[in-house]
């Protein structure tokens, strides 16, 4: 008994001591902010370090930009690395490490002139040898497996001088230009996974697994006019979206990339927001090979029965852009406008089409939905309701995304599904999915005319002609009712008051150079 008593006593003492310390800290009114460094206060007072804290819902998968497969990781590390080219808000390619480039008449040879005097974070100069090293790794010309299919089409890379790189492709591929936003890494440096080095506006400082990624300002950045107004950036892992909102309310988070409508209501007027389309395509994919979806009239009937405006209103709270084909207006230059209203909701016409196809009484349809995405699950529920009006009895089958990737995406064992394709910088990367022999054409769309259009477009060297061909391809997808293209859901970024200028790009990009501190 004595033992128990003294044990309890000890615990009480420890508890009281610890509790006192808690109240001490609260007396000074200073909450511990950044894990290991309590002195870095939330309010960036003049004279102190200027820290930007961004809440991330996922962890870094790998710091090496060539190994990482997670979009979030790439968006964070994009601040550490620069590529030969970069993209602006409209998706136009702009020079970064390259000062200028030239494409040969036949479209096979790309010549890049590099800027002089660019320094990597370790102080060494970035020269053509580094570009050759980087691209050889990506393309597999170093004798290993190619790390990127976009680069697998490179025949040869040469460096005639320290500031010139010549790339020769095996065949004409206009989509290759956009691939040149991939990071350039210092030649021969093998520690990218633990201590990455690039030439971007921020240097890697530390990654605490599962907690935070810390970057510091690169004072020697080669574009001095674009040096961001922050000394330090912390990407903080906060898996729960609700916690991120609470942390922002407490003034401990400055930016949340991707807030839910509920989160916005909670944050109210106290924050600045930026929202817009994210170059994403949410679609109800129809397997064109299974009965009765192999009948174009059935697919048209489904398109006519689905009211996209209603889905946008109910599922996305009105925050979405209606689509008509597998393309988002976020890439304006290549976008075929008007297709979003090609199928106006018309139940009578839909019923007539179904009757023509021999399904006057409707049929049963299985809708496989990845359960990890509540947005798609909600959409599915509206679709069930809408299709029941024309006698199609839809049954929702929930499946984990990991399983979805295998059964639906890879093996095409499904009737219909709801999913979204993330944005790509080049229209070819978006539209290639529907080429009949593309291995991940899980919609099983098959139209030789479409194949020919895409083939022509990718080989084209004239931008306007190319855009025209891509637009025709989009129209074909709509006319053939390849699937039901629903919307490009808006993404909302929340910034603490006093931060402005966040921009949205056709690919997910956290471009910290854009942000202005107003107070």
């Amino acid at each position, binding site marked *: *008994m004595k033992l128990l008593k003294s044990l*309890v006593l000890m*615990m*009480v003492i*420890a*508890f009281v001591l*610890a509790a006192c*310390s*808690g*109240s*001490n*800290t*609260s007396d000074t*009114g200073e*909450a*511990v*902010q*950044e*894990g*290991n460094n*309590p002195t870095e206060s939330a309010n960036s007072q003049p004279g102190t370090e200027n820290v930007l804290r961004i809440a991330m819902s*996922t*962890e870094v*998968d*790998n710091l090496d930009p060539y*190994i990482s*497969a997670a979009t979030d990781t790439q968006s964070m590390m994009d601040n550490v690395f620069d590529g030969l080219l970069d993209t602006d808000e409209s998706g136009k390619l702009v020079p970064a490490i390259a000062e200028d480039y030239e494409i040969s008449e036949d479209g096979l040879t790309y010549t890049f002139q590099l800027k002089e005097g660019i320094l990597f974070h370790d102080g060494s100069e970035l020269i053509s040898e580094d570009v050759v090293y980087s691209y050889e790794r990506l393309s597999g010309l170093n004798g290993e*497996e190619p790390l990127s*299919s976009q680069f697998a089409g490179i025949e040869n890379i040469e460096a005639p001088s320290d500031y010139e790189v010549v790339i020769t492709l095996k065949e004409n591929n206009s989509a290759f230009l956009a691939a040149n936003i991939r990071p350039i890494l210092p030649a021969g440096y093998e520690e990218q*996974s633990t201590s990455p080095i690039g030439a971007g506006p921020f240097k890697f400082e530390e990654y*605490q*697994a*599962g*907690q935070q990624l810390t970057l510091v300002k690169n004072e020697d950045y080669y574009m001095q006019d674009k040096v961001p107004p922050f000394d330090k950036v912390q990407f*903080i*892992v*906060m*898996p*729960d979206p*609700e*916690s991120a909102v*609470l*942390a922002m*309310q*407490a003034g*401990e988070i400055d930016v949340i990339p991707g807030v839910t409508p509920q989160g916005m209501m909670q944050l109210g007027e106290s924050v600045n927001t930026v929202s817009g389309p994210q170059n994403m395509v949410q679609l109800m994919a129809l397997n064109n090979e299974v009965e009765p979806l192999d009948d174009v009239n059935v697919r048209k009937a489904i398109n006519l029965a689905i009211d996209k405006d209603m889905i946008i209103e109910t599922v996305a709270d009105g925050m979405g852009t209606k689509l008509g084909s597998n393309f988002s207006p976020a890439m304006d230059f290549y976008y075929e406008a008007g297709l979003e209203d090609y199928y106006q909701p018309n139940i009578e016409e839909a019923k007539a089409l179904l009757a023509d196809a021999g399904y006057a009484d409707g049929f049963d349809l299985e809708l496989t939905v990845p359960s*990890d995405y509540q947005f798609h699950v909600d959409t599915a529920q509206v679709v069930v309701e809408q299709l029941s009006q024309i006698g199609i009895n839809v049954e929702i089958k929930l499946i*984990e*995304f*990991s*399983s979805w*990737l*295998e*059964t639906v*995406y*890879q093996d095409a064992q499904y009737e219909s599904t709801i999913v979204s*394709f993330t944005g790509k910088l080049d229209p070819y990367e978006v539209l290639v999915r529907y080429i009949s022999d593309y*291995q*991940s054409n899980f919609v099983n769309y098959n139209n030789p005319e479409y194949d020919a259009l895409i083939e022509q477009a990718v080989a084209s060297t004239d931008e306007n002609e190319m855009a025209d061909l891509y637009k025709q391809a989009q129209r074909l997808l709509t006319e053939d009712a390849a699937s039901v293209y629903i919307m490009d859901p808006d993404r909302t970024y929340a910034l603490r008051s006093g931060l402005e200028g966040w921009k949205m790009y056709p690919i997910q990009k956290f471009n910290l150079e854009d942000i202005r501190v107003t107070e």
Partner: protein
Amino acid sequence: MRYFLYKLSSFFITIVLVSMIIFFVFQLLPGNPAHIILGMDADPAQVAQLEKQLGLDRSPVERYADWVRGLLQGDLGESLRYQLPVSDILTDRIPVTSSLAILSLIITLLIGIPLGIFIARSDGKWMSVFLNIVTQLGISIPPFWFGFMLILVFGVTLQLFPTYGYVPWSEDFFGAFQSFFLPSLAIAIGNIAIVIRYLRNTILDQAKMDYVRTARVKGLKERTILYGHILRNSLIPVLTIMGLLVADTLGGSIIIENVFSLPGLGNLLIQSITSRDFPLVQSMVLYIAILVLFINFIVDLLYKLVDPRIRLKG
């Protein structure tokens, strides 16, 4: 001694069985890690290459044998997603989850036992009704809700505690305590309710026993009777419950870590299940299983300490 050996051998046999179940159940899950790692734009050649690199082309039995061989040599393998040794990843995470579990157990005991005794002593009709309502609420409300409420009150409104962040104990003791206090409390609330209910009921039951009457007749003070006799006998069922609560606490910490953005096992476990990171998932589940088994083993030994009459049956 026989008791000890018996318990020890059953401890080890269970571990072997658990390891087999863990390994083969995960093999049944649909979804190919190579697909998941490479994402929606992978080409089949890349997938096949990665499968080979990950050793997924070999039979499950071969892989199980490899895994066990590695385990015995202290090598847990390499994470598929992070491409880092599993042991490195776990060394970072285990202290977080253990701190959470230990602190919440301490809070549970510190609040639950005195409160249970107090309530048992001052038992009255209004008290038991009130107690029933409060403990019922404590048990039925999920810890993550308490978590959010604690953040809202102490983090956002009063600003007494940080809303997120983790500080290792070695770096700053009080900072660490601050970062663990709210999440531990969130887990502890439900457990406190359970301990109070159990302790109160057993104390009231024990108080009706003959030995208590005898003690009173002997003229012992009420305090001595309560603390020296009743409490000692009441602690056995509480001990059993504590064993179960530890397992519960580990389970609860998985969700609470997400709410408080703590880099513990919980968050990692969820992510590695979705990414089919088998080496990581297996090691984590095995670790948690061993921990729970070990604690039950200790509880079994403690029984004997608290009540020497407990013998091995059969």
